[in-house]
Each structure stands twice: as structure tokens, then as C-alpha cells.
């Protein structure tokens, strides 16, 4: 199957610090690809590199077979790549309805209702984002990433700031929505068990480099991963 997203030797430096070092991965349509690793492993930097938020030092990013390394963030969004952020990123002073409509009209989404209902946002449509709870803002953030049926969505810690149970169920919702809408996802998350549960493939980063990349069960039993990251969690 042709990959929807490919990263080839992605490298990102901040001055003398190499945040992401020669990382490659491939994501097929509808697949959830988890990226885990200790703090400072370069997970969010890798997401920034994939999404175009930061300019690559080396390597390339390919979307649907096209090299998009030099494409702008807005172009990527209009052509099938969306993302959410570790820190919730919404339009605080705007109604939930208005901001979802904005993205829907831009991306040609015709079935906004299914996302609204799946993420339980209907009751908040006419409230401003700064009037709803953090968890609901989180849902708006995820909804904005999923609107427009992107081919791949980059989700940076979608469970951040939520209670453990809430975060786990958020991952389940994402799995369901991605399946229903045939959207691939790259998922950075600290909830290792959650990632192993919902992802089809997992890449482990450590100090910016790939430590392992395989199916969840193989990663969980990988000795290098256990020693460097999982420890007793394995």
C-alpha cells in the first residue's frame, strides 16, 4: 500500500543541539503511528518538522507521494495534512461553531456534524472557547484537526492536561474517528499503554534518534526500548 506520509532522514537542529537526528518513518492510509519517548526525546520537534512549523535542517517530508518539505503550513492543511498541539490551540474568543465552520469551509468539509457529535461538541457550539472547560477545548482542537478529512493528522499529546481515564478515552475516540474517516495519524503521547493499545505501529525516539520502530508488541518486548525508556512499564 502506498504511504500517505513519509519522513526521510528528517533532521532538526536548534543551534548546536540536534533535536531530531535522521528520523524516517512511513504511515499508510488509515494507520495510527505512535511516537513515544522520554522527555526531550524530540517527539514534539519531530511533529514540528513534519507539519512545517519548523524548517528542516536535512531530510524531506513526502505527502501522498509529493515532496512537501518546502510547502507552507497552510498549503499542507489544504492538501491533506492537519495537526493539533501539545498546548491546546483554539480561537479563544470565538464561538466553537464559528471556528469549526471556518475550517470546514476552507477544507471543503461537508459532514461537520459527525465530528461535532463524535466529540460531544453540540452543546457548546454557541459558546466561546474561553467559556468551556479545558477538556472541551481539547476536543475542539482535535475536531479542527479532523475537519476536512485530512489524509494524515499529526496529534501532539491529545491527552495532555486530561485525567488518565479521560486521556485514554480520548485516544479511543481518535482511533474510532480515524477508522471511520480513513484518516492516518501520527500520535505523540506519554500514555505508553494507550499508544500500544490504539496504534498500529510505534516508533520510539531517544535523544532525537529512532530507538525502535515496529508493531506495538514487538516494541514492547524490544530490549533496547525496555532499557532506555520503558523499564518497569514493559
Amino acid at each position: 500500500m502506498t504511504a500517505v506520509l513519509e519522513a526521510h532522514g528528517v533532521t532538526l537542529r536548534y543551534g548546536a543541539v540536534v533535536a531530531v537526528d535522521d528520523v524516517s518513518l512511513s504511515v499508510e492510509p488509515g494507520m495510527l503511528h505512535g511516537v513515544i519517548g522520554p522527555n526531550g526525546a524530540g517527539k514534539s520537534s519531530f511533529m514540528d518538522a513534519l507539519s512545517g512549523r519548523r524548517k528542516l535542517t536535512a531530510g524531506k517530508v513526502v505527502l501522498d507521494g509529493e515532496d512537501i518539505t518546502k510547502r507552507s503550513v497552510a498549503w499542507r492543511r489544504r492538501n491533506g495534512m492537519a495537526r493539533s498541539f501539545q498546548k491546546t490551540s483554539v480561537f479563544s474568543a470565538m464561538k466553537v461553531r464559528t471556528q469549526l465552520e471556518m475550517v470546514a469551509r476552507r477544507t471543503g468539509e461537508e459532514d461537520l456534524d459527525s465530528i461535532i457529535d463524535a466529540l460531544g461538541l453540540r452543546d457548546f457550539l454557541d459558546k466561546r472557547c474561553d467559556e468551556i472547560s479545558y477538556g472541551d477545548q481539547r476536543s475542539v482542537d482535535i475536531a479542527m484537526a479532523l475537519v476536512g478529512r485530512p489524509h494524515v493528522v499529526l496529534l501532539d499529546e491529545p491527552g495532555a492536561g486530561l485525567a488518565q481515564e479521560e486521556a485514554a478515552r480520548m485516544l479511543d475516540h481518535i482511533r474510532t474517528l480515524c477508522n471511520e474517516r480513513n484518516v492516518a495519524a501520527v500520535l505523540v503521547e506519554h500514555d505508553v499503554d494507550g499508544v500500544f493499545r490504539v496504534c498500529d505501529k510505534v516508533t520510539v525516539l531517544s535523544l532525537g534518534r529512532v530507538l525502535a520502530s515496529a508493531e506495538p508488541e514487538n516494541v514492547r518486548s524490544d530490549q533496547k526500548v525496555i532499557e532506555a525508556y520503558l523499564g518497569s512499564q514493559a
Partner: protein
Amino acid sequence: MPAVIEEQNPSKTEAKDASVLDRPADLGLSRRRLLRGLIVAVVVLVVGLQVPTFVDDPYYMGVIADGTVLGILAISIGFLIRLSGLISLGHTAFYGGAAYALAIAMNQWDWGPMQAAVFGILGGTLLAVVIGSMAIRITGFGFLMLTLAFGQALYAASVLTSLRDVTGAFDGLGIDWPSDATFFGLEQSDVGASDTFWPLAWVAIVVVAVVLWIAGRSRFGVLLEAIRENEERARFSGYNTYLPRLAAFTLSGACASVAGVLFALKASYVSPNTLGFLTAGDSLIATLVGGFTTLAGPAIGALLYIYAQGEFAESGNLQLYTGLALVIAVVFLPGGISGFVVDLFQRVRGRLTGKGGKA
């Protein structure tokens, strides 16, 4: 509990209305609202044109006319602040630039006032495109300082001795109308008199206000607000954020140019002060005092500012009193006069409807 972890329940499914996207435009200006706005504008226009009938005193008519011209400049600045969060100290470049363009066209090339006015507005607008293309790349304090720098650069250019033949340097330029020339049927002396000048100023401010209102309420305005709120999210929603901000800056600059042209026509004179920091300060003070959260706020501030300037000048302590008045306005009326009135209205309405006013 966040909604995201709630299972869908039957009550929500039953409550589901028609598709969100089928609703009447939440994302922009509906025809009904546009029509209502235009009707209000026509009523305001007609009523406002009667002002000279009620104001006999030439001094107060002058205050109102000058305040209206400054009001056009102030609402153009307020539009940019409200929708883009950008505070400009460089709008005098377009205001003064347009005034100089008109004066140069009439003096150097013997153009009529109408052609020169169009030239002035187009010149000021072009200047807004050029300056905006650089200035809007940054926001906040950087934008403020950069616009100030552009404005001051133009001021410095206007007083260059080497350009005295064109700009009049520190002396400025008196504007000579060609014989028999008229501007919308008005001769030079009529344009210079506040009561006969009034219809020009009033029609101009109403038209500018309507244009800015439509721009602010349209999808363009919603996008500008989104960019102001969270530019990165706007880009990650598929929107180019540079062009809309440049368009807003240019539109605002074009409106400031209209004010500059009217000022030059009425005064029959332009001086470097029209490009200077003090004029930029005047317009910004008027905007802050009137309040930029509403479209009309800056215009109200401008009227009050011109009136107060006359009163303060008599005391001989113009700058001192201006500063004190600004401090009082900013500390006690953080939303400006219009913000205070809107807040009061919401509180009263909240009490009357029992829903509580906006805090």
C-alpha cells in the same frame, strides 16, 4: 467531565438540529443584517446632514467638522486595532501622504481638486501597501515601532531642504485651486468654510464607516479576528495569514488617506505636522479615549478630542491637560467611552432580563 469522553446519548441525538453548515451564515454578514445596517447608515447620513441647521456658532461647527475628519483617521486606526490587534503609529504617513499628494498634484501639475483628491487617496493607499507589506510581518511592539519609523521617515523627507520646491519643507504648501475649479460643486471658499464643508465630511465618514463595518462583519473580518486570536492555528486551518492582514492594513490606510485629502482641501494647506508624531499621537489618543471595541468609538473620541484641545489651549497648558485627560480615560474607562456605554447597556439589559450583565 469533558465532552470528549462522554458516550453519545439519545437525548443529544434527538436534540440534533439541521446540519451545522446549513444554518444561516454564522461566518460572515447575512443579507438581512447587511440590509439593516445599510438602512441605519442612510438614516444616520440624512440626520447628520442637518447638523449645520442646529449649530449656528462657526467655532463649534469648525470643531465638529475637524473632529469628523480626525474621526475618519481614528476609525481607520480603530478598525486595525479591533480586528488585527495591530496598533499603528504610522497612519499619518497615509493621512499626510495623501494630503501632500493632493497638494503637489494641484500646485505642480495644475490638477483640479477632484483629480487631485483621487490621486491623493490612491497615493496614500499605495503607500499603505508598500509600508504594510513590510510592517505586518511583525506584531505587537515591533509593529508599533516600525509604523512609527515609517511615519517619521516620511516626515523627515517632507522637510528636506532639497525638496523645498516640491514639499515646501518646514513651511509646508499652500494649495492653489485652478480658477473656476469646484469640488462636488463647491468652490474653494465653500470647502474652507465648516458649514458648507460639512456634507463632504459627513458623507465621507459614513461611507468609510459602512465600508469598515461590512469588512469587519464579513468572512474577511471573521478571518482577521481568527488571525488576531491565534495566527498559528489560522495557518494550521489552511489560511494564508499574511494577505488578509495586508488587505486590512491597506483598507485602513485608504480610509486614513480619505481623511488626509479632506483635511488638505478644507485647510487649503498642508504642513509637515500632518505627517508628524503629534498627529499620530492625536489620532491614537482619540481612538483610545473613544474606545476601539466599537466602530463609532474612535469617531466619538476624535470629536471630544478636538473640542477638548480648544478648551485646553485657552488655559495655556494644552499638553499637560491632554496627558491628564488621557490618563483618566485609560485608567477609569479602559474600554474608552464607547466601551463604557456598551458595558453599561449590557448590564442594564442583563438586570432587566434577569440574565445578569456582562461582567
